[in-house]
């Protein structure tokens, strides 16, 4: 168990990186508290797996330090760091039984068999593997195998952090949900620090207390799921999280006021705007409503998403989406829209005004 501190971390897969583009990770600083559940969220290729492998010690950083509880481990081997990792594809030892698989990390560390047995049985109980302990691991289904990988991490009581690299990729959809709840349950039960890497927002937002959103080798925002939803620091986060994503509408800013389509739009942070090449308004479809008098818009498309309908409109050259709950009248043809001021933000060059790093 440990607090993980990452300080000015950079990593390049090239031997001699020249420009910023050569870095898969561009200067990262983060602190993760002991016992927390964290998620690293971002599109494929954003550097999240690189970051994970740097923390686990499978890679050595080009620059910067990683420390566990204040102890610098940047150059330590995975074994010395005492971490556990669950990979995208289940890694099991085919020829061993489930029991031997779970006992393997302990046996490698010379733990006496008498201590191994209760420990393995306890973990198997938690993971609901007790019945299959005597079976060969290769005969299990994908979710069973992934549970074994996880179990090998849990079985060591002194593991600093357990990391998950998109662990549900090969799991059947109906089992994904089960395994995800299981993970959450295990986290609450064991209070181990867990880091979960994924490109699936649902997985990240349901698992983690704190979500780190990454894009192109940089951390764009780190916050609670609610922060990410209500106050995206960057339009990328607004787009990436939420379904459909946040509306991003070009606007102009003058004297601490935002203007769109010739009228003022009240935005929560308009006063913080300092002026930039590109200014935009961000408002989630959840916070756009139909009103009698407001921003004139034409309805382009209505799609049914079950409990609500997604209405796509065009207003002064911009696309604005809004949600209409089931049972309410859907606007047609020409309509008028209003934004909830408390949930409307001004973005400058992509970053939320006043929050630019």
């Amino acid at each position, binding site marked *: 168990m440990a607090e993980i501190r990452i300080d000015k971390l950079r990593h390049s897969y090239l031997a001699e990186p020249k420009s910023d583009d050569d870095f898969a990770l561009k200067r990262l600083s983060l602190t993760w508290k002991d016992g927390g559940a964290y998620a690293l969220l971002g599109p494929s290729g954003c550097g999240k797996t690189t970051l994970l492998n740097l923390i686990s010690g499978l890679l050595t950083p080009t620059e910067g330090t990683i420390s566990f509880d204040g102890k610098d481990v940047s150059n330590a081997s995975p074994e010395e760091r005492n971490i556990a990792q669950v990979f995208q594809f289940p890694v099991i030892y085919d020829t061993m039984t489930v029991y031997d698989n779970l006992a393997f990390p302990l046996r490698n560390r010379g733990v006496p068999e008498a201590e191994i047995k209760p420990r393995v049985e306890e973990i198997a109980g938690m993971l609901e593997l007790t019945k299959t302990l005597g079976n060969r691991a290769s*005969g299990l289904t994908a979710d069973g195998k992934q549970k074994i990988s996880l179990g090998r991490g849990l079985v060591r009581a002194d593991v600093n952090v357990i990391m998950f690299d998109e662990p549900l990729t090969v799991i059947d959809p109906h089992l994904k949900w089960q395994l995800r709840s299981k993970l959450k349950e295990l986290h609450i039960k064991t209070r181990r620090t867990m880091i979960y890497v994924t490109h699936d927002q649902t997985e990240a937002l349901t698992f983690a207390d704190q979500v780190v959103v990454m894009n192109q080798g940089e951390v764009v925002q780190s916050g609670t799921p609610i922060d990410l939803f209500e106050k995206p620091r960057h339009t990328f986060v607004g787009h990436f999280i939420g379904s459909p994503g946040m509306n991003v509408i070009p606007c102009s800013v003058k004297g601490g006021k935002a203007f769109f389509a010739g009228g003022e739009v009240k935005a929560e942070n308009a006063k913080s705007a300092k002026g930039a090449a590109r200014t935009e308004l961000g408002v989630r479809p959840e916070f756009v409503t139909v009103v009698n008098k407001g921003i004139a818009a034409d309805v382009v498309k209505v799609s049914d998403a079950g409990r609500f309908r997604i209405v796509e409109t065009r207003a002064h050259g911009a696309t604005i989406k809004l949600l209409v709950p089931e049972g309410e009248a859907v606007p047609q043809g020409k309509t008028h829209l209003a934004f909830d001021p408390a949930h409307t933000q001004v973005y400058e060059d992509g970053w939320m005004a006043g929050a630019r790093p």
Partner: protein
Amino acid sequence: MNKTWDNRAWWLVLPVFLMVAFNALIPLMTVVNYSIQESFAANEFFWAGARWFRELLNNPDFHASLGRQIIFTAVVLLIQVPLGLGIALCMPRKGAWVSVCLVLMALPLLVPWNVVGSMWNIMALPDIGLLGWGLNALGIDYNYTRQPGAAWFTVVLMDVWHWTSLVALLCYAGLVSIPDAYYQAAKIDGARPWAVFRFIQLPKLKHVLTIAILLRFMDSFMIYTEVIVLTGGGPGSTTKFLSIDLVQKALGGFDLGPAAAFSIVYFLIILFASWLFYTLMMREEAK
């Protein structure tokens, strides 16, 4: 769903049936045909029944060459499989040396078999060959044309030189295809190199090893060219393996009946051993 039944579909199998007939069934049946008849000149044939088989199975010469064959194959497998696996484990996984190693390893496989025999024949000559002369210069009395031990040593060494690469290349291909995650997981689980080999590499290599052993078994059990060029089955008949024995019978004596019976027994032994081996190796899989 309604299935359409139409026996005319069997005609579609005809091309495959013809191919199998021409490349396996007809030649094999010809041999079966010879094996139960006695042949005389002028194409005269008489029914012989199981006589050739009885004679063969009671023939001490056959027992001797079968015994030599089994020992040879066992020795060759025991050396080549662990050695090939060891070489594959030592070969680099990335970098410029990969292609160098692969080419070096593939070279012996590209040499024609009779050339391999000639090369080793010359190299092992005690008076002018590098190997033969060298051994004698070291004070070891070595002459493969006269000493059975030396002949066996040379034949085995030649086969190891010629075929270990095949095992190594197959194992290498198997090793390269193991995903990195396995090695990473093993590192995290604190596995020592031996445990990595025992619990990751070896189980993952099971299939290629099965293929390698099967190929090497069949090939070494049928070895002919290299040995006939190197020792001619001698000195005496100490390196006379099954195929050499067979050729001497069939071509030397022109005894078509006994030679055909020999071929069938030979074929059945290989077939049975391969089947047995494959079944044993794959038995675990079925569980």
